[in-house]
């Protein structure tokens, strides 16, 4: 009887360590296959090279255009998604009539559940033609598959993350803050915006970081709307390529060094995500300590 209990505990521990094992394997396989390529290309050339021409002789593998492309589109997504998300969270937490909440909250969850291909397809048939029209008026050309299209689409896609996490951060602020503000003569709106919102700032900030992570890591939706030209971004009405898109577009036919350079692109992406995760953990830990 005792032995059985002991074995069971060891078995459960074994299952629990699968997470660690999986993480180690992901790093192992990516680094083992990607690092040699970085060595061959040269870390500096790889990270700061501005041209990605895999068919040339000799080929050039510089991923700076993709790094900048990812940064552009992520920044745009945050610029669009975060204000809308935070205000919607405030609306849900403090201004929404109950009957409307019962409708709006599931709507936000539905937005979170829509697959990225569906978003990408929507972007392709609605946002891209819309941006094409703008682009025609402004510059007299452009296909619409552009950084701007990706920004708009990613802005919508990060909404649920920003809304849900900000909303719970706002709700976690003690009721007394709000009541105290009211007692001092502040209006409802003022209390919410100038007392409760600042008190929830680390949670709200955490939601932004998480949204950032979503935007950097998004692949299929971006591929479908961003144009994907591997060149340095030349304005938001022109196309550009992200790190994620680089992998998905070329992995199907890449061989040898090209293929390993794509895996190395994955390593760079992974490091970006890790940095974002570390910042996120840091913020949530600090907010937990403050609470």
């Amino acid at each position, binding site marked *: 009887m005792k032995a059985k209990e002991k074995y069971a505990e060891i078995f459960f*521990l074994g299952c*629990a*360590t699968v*997470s660690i094992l999986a993480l180690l394997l992901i790093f192992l396989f990516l680094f083992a296959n990607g690092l040699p390529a970085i060595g061959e290309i040269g870390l500096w050339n790889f990270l700061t090279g501005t041209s990605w021409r895999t068919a040339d002789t000799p080929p050039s593998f510089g991923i700076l255009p993709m790094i900048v492309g990812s940064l552009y589109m992520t920044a745009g997504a945050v610029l669009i998604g975060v204000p809308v998300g935070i205000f919607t969270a405030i609306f849900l937490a403090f201004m929404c009539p109950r009957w409307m909440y019962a409708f709006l909250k599931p709507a936000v*969850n539905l937005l979170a559940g829509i697959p990225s291909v*569906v978003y990408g397809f929507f972007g392709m048939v609605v946002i891209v033609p819309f941006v094409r029209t703008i682009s025609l008026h402004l510059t007299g050309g452009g296909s619409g598959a552009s950084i701007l299209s990706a920004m708009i689409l990613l802005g919508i896609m990060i909404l649920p993350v920003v809304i849900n996490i900000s909303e719970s951060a706002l709700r976690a602020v003690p009721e007394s803050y709000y009541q105290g503000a009211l007692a001092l003569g502040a209006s409802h709106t003022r209390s919410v915006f100038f007392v409760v919102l600042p008190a929830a700032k680390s949670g709200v900030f955490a939601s932004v970081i998480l949204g950032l992570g979503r935007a950097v890591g998004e692949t299929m939706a971006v591929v479908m709307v961003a144009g994907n030209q591997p060149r340095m971004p030349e304005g938001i009405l022109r196309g550009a390529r992200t790190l994620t898109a680089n992998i*998905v577009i070329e992995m199907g036919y890449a061989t040898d060094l090209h293929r390993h350079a794509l895996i190395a692109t994955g390593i760079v992406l992974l490091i970006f995500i*890790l940095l974002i995760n570390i910042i996120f953990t840091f913020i949530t830990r600090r907010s937990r300590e403050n609470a």
Partner: protein
Amino acid sequence: MRKPIDIFLFCLTWGFAALTLISLLFIIIHVLINGIPHLTPTLFERRFTTDNVSMFPAIISTIFFVLLTLLMAVPLGIFASIYLVEYVKKGSKIVTLIRSATEMLAGIPSVVYGLFGMLMFVEFFGFGWSLISGSLTLTVMILPVVIRTTEEALKSVQGGYREGGFALGAGKLRVVFRIVLPSAIPGILAGVILAIGRIVGETAALIFTAGTIPQVPQELTQSARTLAVHMWALSAEAHHTNEAYATAVILLLIVLGINTASAVIARLITAKTK
């Protein structure tokens, strides 16, 4: 009493909330209006041909992927959570390590999972582009979801249940499997449903692990495409836009079903704890 800034912020809040709702409604209505008319019976015929891009094989394959992945991820996730909640001593180092690893896994983008699955399952293990490679990759991907929700579910089981079990002379294993786990089922189910949503919506992790062949796989080592991958493949070809709309309708319906199911379960849980 109302100052301009109050009115301004008030309008801004309502406006942005409306914008969120409008975005969602626009996406859904647009897809439904353009998709439903193209949901013809031929799209559900048993075989996929280049003339009739039937989504039937993709639907069956999606079910296979979901079942196979859950079969691996759910027991593994539940056992892992049992360890984390029931067996661990307070302040143990290994738990912090496991938690951080799980959190980190949750943040990794699906395209990186795709690369990993390709390198490990497809090539290193030699499974090729197949049902099994895809499912194994998805298993690693949804493991954090299952662990996190199961952990919450187990934690919410009151301590008195366990103590009652021990007091009656039951061993730890018995208490865990006969008392704690059954009371945690709704919470675990919520996690499983969330995981199904992730699997159904996934594309980037599957393209280079499961391939994109539109067939019903007969063996674990055969390639297959899920509905999401099917839709991606269709939208890449300009002349299949209508069929892509129709597939989007089915995907939206699945998501709607999943969200409804998890809302119902959430209501069950809160009703129980009250």
